[in-house]
């Protein structure tokens, strides 16, 4: 008997469900924020939720999301420091904490002096707000992206970081987004403006204090001016029933440097779109790890756009897929006409732990310049028998040998995280998840 694979369309009207509460949002005191929201609402009139028919979503069926009856967050959970101690990172002394998308001042620790701003937009003064106006909503396109448009339509508060010219923030900034309620939708928004010659490290961290289903739809914009250096670590450890659909847009000025490590561990369905645009002589390293099992799906779409000459990009994306989980990677590297002397290297490496695990990977190079050095590649495999044998010949059982190798496969990415406390935390989490070392 032949079966016809039917493509489930998102329930008609689900976008309306997601828009519930938007018209009732309190108007911002800043007219331009209201205008930005209105612009997003206008686009949403013509946008629809993606289906498997859309090229960019052909492996990621979001119809399970459309069966989740979410509502906007109405009540704010009253959390205390002890409730979130487990997420505390010792070396990140500045932190902005959002609970179900709502800023929690009592848990946060801000900086607003010497021109540095690490705070929420609502607490910014007029001059500070005016300073970020050219950037907010200008890097993450939402005219053709329904989820970014939704986020922008709900734009109320923003995790805001401004690092002034030539300043170095020694300690990392921790943005912590905590999900405490099931059946809600939240739309976190982050903006980082790194002025010329500045240096900073940003940790964007999504966690849950419950194991229910919810929808989190973040948008992050990062603008690096000339010679700015930003390290960006993004950790998605939502509940395994959650839906996490995120957009991140990074604009690199001349000779700037952006290094990101993205780790996806949680969510039933997660999608991360990362768009990096490089100006002349800019350099980026964009690494990622998805470690999933059960019936999880983790989809990473990246675009590295060499718009100008002398750019350098490096990308290592790894997926470890167990159970009947499904990982998707689509990595596009674009070298525009005139972007000569571009140096790009992209690698997608995937480890399938079971017969039912699935990976769809598509590294993509589009080159429109003739004097470039570009390489890409993808591997999909299981643990190497010779490697397992080596460890067994040292007395380790088959399961410990396999766990250790699985851990090591992921640890290569975790190793690149420049924040010791976070790195240690994730190593332990991955050890636990791969059932390895004592």
């Amino acid at each position: 008997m032949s079966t016809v694979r039917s493509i489930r369309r998102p329930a008609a009207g689900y976008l309306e469900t997601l828009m519930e509460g938007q018209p009732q949002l309190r108007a911002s005191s800043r007219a331009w924020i209201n205008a930005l929201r209105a612009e997003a609402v206008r686009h949403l009139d013509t946008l629809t939720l993606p289906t498997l028919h859309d090229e960019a979503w052909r492996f990621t069926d979001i119809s399970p999301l459309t069966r989740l009856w979410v509502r906007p967050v109405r009540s704010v959970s009253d959390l205390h420091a002890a409730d979130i101690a487990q997420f505390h990172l010792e070396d990140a002394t500045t932190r902005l904490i959002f609970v179900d998308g709502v800023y929690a001042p009592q848990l946060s620790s801000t900086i607003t002096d010497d021109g540095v701003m690490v705070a929420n937009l609502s607490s910014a003064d007029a001059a500070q707000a005016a300073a970020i106006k050219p950037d907010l909503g200008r890097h993450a396109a939402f005219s053709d992206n329904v989820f970014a448009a939704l986020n922008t339509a709900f734009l109320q508060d923003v995790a805001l970081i401004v690092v002034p010219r030539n300043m170095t923030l020694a300690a990392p900034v921790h943005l912590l987004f905590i999900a405490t309620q099931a059946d809600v939708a939240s739309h976190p928004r982050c903006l980082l403006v790194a002025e010329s010659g500045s240096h900073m490290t940003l940790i964007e961290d999504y966690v849950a204090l419950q194991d229910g289903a919810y929808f989190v739809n973040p948008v992050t914009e990062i603008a690096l001016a000339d010679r700015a250096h930003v390290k960006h670590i993004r950790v998605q450890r939502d509940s395994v029933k959650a839906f996490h659909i995120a957009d991140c847009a990074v604009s690199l000025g001349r000779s700037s440097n952006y290094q990101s490590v993205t780790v996806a561990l949680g969510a039933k369905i997660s999608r991360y779109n990362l768009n990096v645009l490089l100006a002349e002589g800019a350099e980026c390293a964009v690494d990622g790890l998805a470690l999933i099992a059960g019936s999880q799906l983790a989809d990473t779409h990246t675009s590295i756009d060499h718009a100008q000459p002398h750019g350098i990009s490096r990308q290592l994306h790894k997926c470890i897929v167990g159970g009947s989980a499904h990982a998707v990677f689509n990595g596009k590297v674009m070298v525009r006409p005139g972007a000569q002397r571009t140096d790009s290297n992209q690698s997608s490496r995937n480890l399938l732990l079971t017969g039912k695990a699935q990976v769809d990977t598509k590294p993509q190079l589009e080159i429109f310049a003739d004097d470039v050095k570009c390489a890409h590649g993808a591997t999909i495999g299981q643990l190497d028998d010779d490697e397992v044998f080596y460890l067994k010949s040292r007395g380790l059982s088959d399961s410990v040998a396999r766990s250790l190798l699985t851990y090591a496969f992921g640890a290569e990415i975790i190793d690149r995280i420049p924040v010791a406390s976070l790195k240690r935390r994730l190593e332990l989490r991955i050890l636990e998840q791969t059932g390895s070392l004592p």
Partner: protein
Amino acid sequence: MIYNDSKTLLEVRGLRATVNGVEILKGLDFTVKSGEVHAIMGPNGSGKSTFAKVLAGHSAYEVTAGSVLFEGKNLFDLAPEERARAGVFLAFQYPIEIPGVANSQFLRLTYNTVQAQRGQEELDPLEFDDFVREKMKLLEMSPDFLGRSVNEGFSGGEKKRNEILQMALLDPRLAILDETDSGLDIDALRIVSQGVNQLANRHNAIVLVTHYQRLLNYIVPDFVHVMEAGRIIKTGDKSLALDLETRGYDWVAAERPAAAAVAVVA
């Protein structure tokens, strides 16, 4: 060293093994007693490395005939990890790299796993650190190697020293060193050999699998065996290695056509 009162550690009789359906070992006999050092030499493709991997239990090799007793017990009843715990150790020709796992972590895990299985004391990280640093002195290894990922970015010589370090930690009864001399410069060869010599005692035995006589200037064997087409076709003392060095392997096979014919019939 040959001792009068030594026990038989390993007894291989008529061993045949295949890989992907191709027979590599074709009726191999080999006996090792405690205290002894054996060298197995032979041309490429004669089955030396296959023999080493069969003893350690690599799943790619299928044993089709013959027997191997280790301390009187059937070795093939044991999984590779059980053989390691029972005291069989293989130093790999190409040790694997494990990026992301610190060497110290790996060494302690293997040490404690084997100790626990042998009903002996496990060490916590601090105790182990002292213990392993002592052993590293034997191989003139810098403590830096503890913090680095297992074998990652190690030179050929450093990987081989790390293998012998594992031998020192796991304290095997039977150590099989598969081409441990390959890729070593003269200094590394001396250091690795000294390490092995210090680990050799009257209760254990060492089997060196090698192409070159050079190694045997440093680790002096009690027996030298020549392997050819999956069998041991000649056994002698250390002077045999010198003959092989000057005359090559061909004369050995030519000298014993009758034995070869008998083996085929058998």
